[in-house]
């Protein structure tokens, strides 16, 4: 179990909401080069592409948070999540509070554009499979979360989160903390599931928790 599971026989489909043509072109290229390929069914500058045919049937929505000057598109994210869509937030904004807010609303994961090349394809696959995925930017945000309603994390879990944020290499984290890469992944996934079980209720969060319990990643009593 864990990050980077391969998709099933079906081709994963994605709809991409981003107003920058270079980003759209880049994401399409990464998806086409993925193995097996991921199909970008539609892309556009407005969130409407995610609600209209063929975007409404895509497995995963990749959403840029800043589509206009009114600030982060939390409203759009909320409506997509409430409709049961798996949303990968993909944004220029690299700060803790934005990441934690997206997680609280029910985004599947949060990626900064600097991390796109290394993590976007894997995050899309994880979203399609409903298995946790925590890239470094999100990991750093969770590791430094000081809000009163945060879930209780073990010191070791915080170590793993922050080391992953610092070095961006699971192998190096494993070496540093004298763990196996598999164990590092387990720590990250368990933390992600703990976050899915707090705050605002959302169908995507519930299914992430349900899947984690089914897979034996975490016990009901631990949440």
């Amino acid at each position, binding site marked *: 179990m864990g990050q980077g599971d391969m998709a099933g026989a079906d081709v994963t489909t994605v709809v991409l909401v981003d107003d920058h043509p270079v980003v759209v072109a880049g994401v399409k290229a990464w998806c086409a080069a993925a193995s097996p390929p991921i199909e970008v069914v539609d892309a556009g500058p407005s969130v409407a592409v995610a609600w209209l045919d063929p975007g409404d049937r895509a497995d995963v929505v990749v959403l840029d948070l800043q589509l206009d000057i009114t600030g982060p598109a939390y409203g759009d994210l909320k409506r997509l999540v409430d409709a049961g869509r798996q949303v990968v937030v993909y944004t220029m904004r690299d700060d803790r509070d934005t990441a934690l807010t997206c997680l609280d609303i029910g985004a599947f994961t949060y990626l900064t554009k*600097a991390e796109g090349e290394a993590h976007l394809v894997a995050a899309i696959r994880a979203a399609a499979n409903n298995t946790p995925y925590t890239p470094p930017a999100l990991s*750093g945000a969770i590791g*430094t979360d*000081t809000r009163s309603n945060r879930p209780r994390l073990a010191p070791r879990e915080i170590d793993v989160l*922050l080391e992953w944020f*610092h070095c961006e290499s699971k*192998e190096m984290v494993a070496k540093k903390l004298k763990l196996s890469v598999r164990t590092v992944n387990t720590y990250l996934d368990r933390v992600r599931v703990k976050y899915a079980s707090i705050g605002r209720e959302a169908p995507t969060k519930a299914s992430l928790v349900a899947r984690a319990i089914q897979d034996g990643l975490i016990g009901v009593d631990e949440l």
Partner: protein
Amino acid sequence: MSLTDPADPDASAGVDADLIVAKFLQGLHWATAATTLGVLFGLQVPVVLGHRDGYSSVAAQFLAIGVFTAVTLVVVVAVRRGRPVGWWRWPMLALVLLVSVLATATVLPGHHFGPPHWSYGTVGWPLALLTLERGIGPLAGLLGTHYAATAIQAAVAGQSTATLAGVVGETVVTASFQVAIGVFATVQRRIASAAVRAAREEERVHTAEAVAAQLHADRRARYAELASTTAPLLAGLASGALDPAHEEVRRACAVEAARMRRLFAEGAEAPDPLLHELRACIDLAERNGVSVQFAQRGERPPVPGAVRRLLTEPAVAALATARSTARVTVVGTGGTVTVSVVADAPPEAVPAVETTELTTSTVVSEERIWVKVTWRART
């Protein structure tokens, strides 16, 4: 080391200016108050007692003497406490003019400008005392008002035996003393404000000198750090002992350049000096064609300058010697500050920093080196 902003110099200079002017005028206040009281009790009380039949109300005359005395004492107390009369001078001036009008009104017709009309020349003393801090302008205006009011009152009462020459003579004799005081006060105020200006200028020069000396000392302290690392390198290059073509020498030059860049950044008054200094080194690395990722998380306590230099040392070296990519991250959590760098730099080029306050961890994997320095703020 950095200088904190001194308190607003203009605000403190304003208070100083008031103090200096008050000091200058203090003697004049004492002299005028003493003259006023001397005139009232030495000359005018006997006059009133001797001409009781010259008034329709003797009580009104004593009321006027009482008010003039009270006003004088208020000014004496205010000067004694070192606090100017301020806004209160205006109601007191009105009161003085009012009782002066009352005193004149209760002088029997025919005695105006004569010996019983003591208040005519005397009212100028409390007026001069109250307007001392305001200079000659207000005093001249008030005296003019007083003379005009008295002239009208005397004309309305009629039966005056006074001659124009007599009135002018008496007016000139009394007013000349009072106006002289006003002129003297104005001159002293001018001297005082010149003194204030000189004091302010002196203060400014002192402050500028202190700031310059501090900056110079800071700069010397920082460049002293370079003497142990940069100077031998430059000396070696100059003497030919070090070969610029040699990989290691080139790497040492890159690291020294980055250190100097960090020193230049230290001088600036940035709101977040740690990030400011790191950014300066990231800039340099990016200009050398290294792709740098930077991210920070959490809240950091402020880091003292010397600790900052140690915290960023591995990052500076790694950024200067990275071949193509580097990731720099800063995390603040639970009173600790961590600066971490992952780069494809040669491990021997990145120093490990180890002191009682800092802990360093190094992980080397294949092409990359990861150095993390953590500082714990003393609580």
